[in-house]
């Protein structure tokens, strides 16, 4: 499938790379960006691991415990939004525009709910005594979850932009797929954050 006939995106003169099959330069570029973003998250998680590993006592006296059940619900919510996102792509591929649009809107709503949940969690933790800068545990927690929350926020805006373009007929299943790569990456990272920051003993 020739790049120029299937996808009219990016520089028209960019030659398709046969080694990457049907993957367009846009998809390859998105993957390279996501790998670089993975390095950023990896650095933060490794830094937290080193600080935590070097301390016999990670939870300081008076600091609240992290809310595992609530965060598990947030985790399941994020997984669900990845599910609705890929369903949106499948609908777009099939030409079911209304279904694709509804699923994209549901995905964005799920992302917003996740952010509301996280802000609720932060509020409770701050009131409970987990304050940024007071301990390595507190600082690394807010930096890591805040960085992830920033990605979720950008993702919600990205979904909204693609949805708006899709409704006007200016976005295709290809655009929905690229969006899906970013949104699923956000879920991908959260899996590690949940395991290493919240669950790890």
């Amino acid at each position, binding site marked *: 499938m020739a790049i120029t006939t299937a996808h009219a995106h990016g520089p028209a003169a960019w030659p398709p790379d046969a*080694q*990457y*099959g049907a*993957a367009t330069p846009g998809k*390859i570029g998105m*993957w*390279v960006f*996501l*790998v670089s973003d*993975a*390095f950023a998250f*990896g650095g933060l*998680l*490794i830094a937290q*691991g*080193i*600080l*935590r*590993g*070097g*301390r*016999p006592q990670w939870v300081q006296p008076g600091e609240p415990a992290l809310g*595992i059940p609530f965060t*598990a619900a947030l*985790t*399941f919510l994020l*997984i*669900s939004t*990845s*599910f609705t*996102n*890929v*369903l949106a*792509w*499948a*609908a777009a*591929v*099939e*030409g079911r525009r209304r279904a694709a649009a509804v699923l994209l809107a549901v995905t964005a709503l799920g992302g917003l709910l996740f952010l509301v949940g996280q802000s609720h969690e932060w509020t409770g933790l701050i009131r409970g005594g987990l304050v940024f800068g007071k301990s390595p545990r507190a600082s690394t927690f807010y930096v890591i979850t805040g960085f992830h929350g920033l990605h979720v926020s950008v993702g919600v805006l990205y979904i909204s932009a693609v949805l708006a373009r899709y409704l006007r007929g200016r976005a295709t299943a290809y655009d929905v*797929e690229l969006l*899906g*790569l970013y949104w*699923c*990456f956000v*879920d*991908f990272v959260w*899996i*590690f954050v*949940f*395991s*290493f920051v919240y*669950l*790890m*003993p």
Partner: protein
Amino acid sequence: MGSSARGAAYRAQYVVTFVVLGVLTLVELGVVRMPGIPTIGVRIALVTLAVAKSALIALFYMHLRFETPILRLTVLAPLVAPAIYGLILIAEAGARAMR
């Protein structure tokens, strides 16, 4: 395969992946809360489950399974060395703390 049949085939995989992800999340919670498991065992289990869940998302939701080996290598190869290095650094920090 027509677009409709292709979409249906993908949807079935997505549903199965979603269910498996939910089950693995429950297993994670169970491992953490179950008494009697040594701490090192819980840590290994959590890392393994996290890698398994993220692999499912990458392979099925991000369609890496359907891409060429070169693209898979482009994505996965750069992550291996930092992951190993990170584990070594964390283990070293722990060993220093125990001295």
